[in-house]
């Protein structure tokens, strides 16, 4: 590829139906930002019954995005050079440090902030993907969507791996890829993935491509509103869990059919 490219971002999160009768807030968090030609989106899913996990998720996405944007080259080189665990440790430890800071720690134990994390960052033709827990990352290239990073669950439906666990660094997966063609990436929490990934045969929903196309072609504000509306209207009907999506789209990959 070679040329400079500015990615387009979109993200939204909605509380699940299991919160409706308890006035609960959404424990999924999404965030994204671009800085000096590097773009990053992140999504974190707070642990169900942990009372501050939504706060943990919101802190995790912000810390992860800022850290990755500032240190993209270092992290990318580390992962390419086989030092994934070092790179993972720098991300996980920074988030834990943040959660342990006075502002957070006075409100609870570290485990109360338990959440998963998934992020995607891109700078020109380089993409960095990080993943812990039961979210999923899809990639879309030439209108073909596939799984870029699969969910990492325990055996049972209500088990997964969290940033606050002792083995978080060990389980944190990182990949660094040099792209040959334009690629968009869509991150989904396990709640949203119920509508996007068929578990029996790993089929990816056509919606993944369409959401990436919207992001590539439309203003962020418009796509964020559309994401929220679709999450509330359709995704949430298929699960009781919170639902969230974050997209990092390459506008060069946008399909003519949608504009």
């Amino acid at each position: 590829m070679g040329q400079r490219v500015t990615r387009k971002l979109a993200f939204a999160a909605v509380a699940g139906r299991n919160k409706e009768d308890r006035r609960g807030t959404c424990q999924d968090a999404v965030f994204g930002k671009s800085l000096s030609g590097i773009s990053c989106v992140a999504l974190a899913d707070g642990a169900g019954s942990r009372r501050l996990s939504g706060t943990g998720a919101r802190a995790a996405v912000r810390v992860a995005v800022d850290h990755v944007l500032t240190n993209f080259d270092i992290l990318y080189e580390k992962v390419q050079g086989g030092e994934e665990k070092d790179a993972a440790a720098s991300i996980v430890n920074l988030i834990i440090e943040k959660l342990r800071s006075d502002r957070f720690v006075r409100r609870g134990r570290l485990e109360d902030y338990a959440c998963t994390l998934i992020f995607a960052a891109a700078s020109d033709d380089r993409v960095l993907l990080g993943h812990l827990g039961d979210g999923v990352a899809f990639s879309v290239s030439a209108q073909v969507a596939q799984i870029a990073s699969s969910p990492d669950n325990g055996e049972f439906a209500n088990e997964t791996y969290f940033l606050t666990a002792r083995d978080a660094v060990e389980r944190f997966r990182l990949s660094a890829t040099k792209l040959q063609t334009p690629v968009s990436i869509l991150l989904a929490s396990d709640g949203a993935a119920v509508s996007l990934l068929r578990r029996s045969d790993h089929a990816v929903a056509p919606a993944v491509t369409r959401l990436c196309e919207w992001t590539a072609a439309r203003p962020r504000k418009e796509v964020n509103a559309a994401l929220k509306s679709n999450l509330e209207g359709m995704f949430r009907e298929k699960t009781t869990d919170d639902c969230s999506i974050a997209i990092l789209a390459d506008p060069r990959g946008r399909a003519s059919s949608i504009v």
Partner: protein
Amino acid sequence: MNDDLILRQEELVENPTARLPVCLVLDTSASMTGAPITELQEGVNTFFAQLLADDVAKYSAEVAVVTFGGNVDMAVDFAAVTRQTVPSLTAGGMTPMGEAVEKALELLQTRKDEYKRAGVDYYQPWLVIMTDGAPTDSISNASRLVDELVRGKKLAVFAIGIGKDADMNELAKLSGGRPPLKLKGLEFGQFFLWLSASVARVSQSVPGNKVDLDPVAAWASV
């Protein structure tokens, strides 16, 4: 919002609801004759009815029933409760509890394998054992298997003794370390109401949920 930014249902995929397999292992030996078997039957009827009345549990819960009274029988195999018929329970014979528990564990493992093959998510399986007596066969193998599964957090066991003749020491060997509870009188109805409410709660849980079950005071004696 623009109308063209609305997804169509066909653009999403369908996934089955995560399942919670529950195996009831019920004593139907001769000592259960009379009021106990009648009350147990009522309780099991209530259990199925309550699960069907819950919007989430009716698609999530899957129940199998193994009875031990003379023979060990699989009265109901695992399936969605919406497609099951409540078994008719009759009392008679000895109490082959060890064999019944082994049968239940085999059914649970088979069902988990089926879920895996079909790409269906599932919750930690539940084993519910109810007896009013003492086993008349060896329970050592069943006890070892239960211990192994409970230690590995692969199984939740609810062991319930009925009446004064229930051998709580033997039952404890099948409960994976959690002390068995004694049913208050013949409060099967209360127990199965509690059980169905607990199933409903777990079947709505998401990763990271610690599910607190209701107090057992309505049906368990201290």
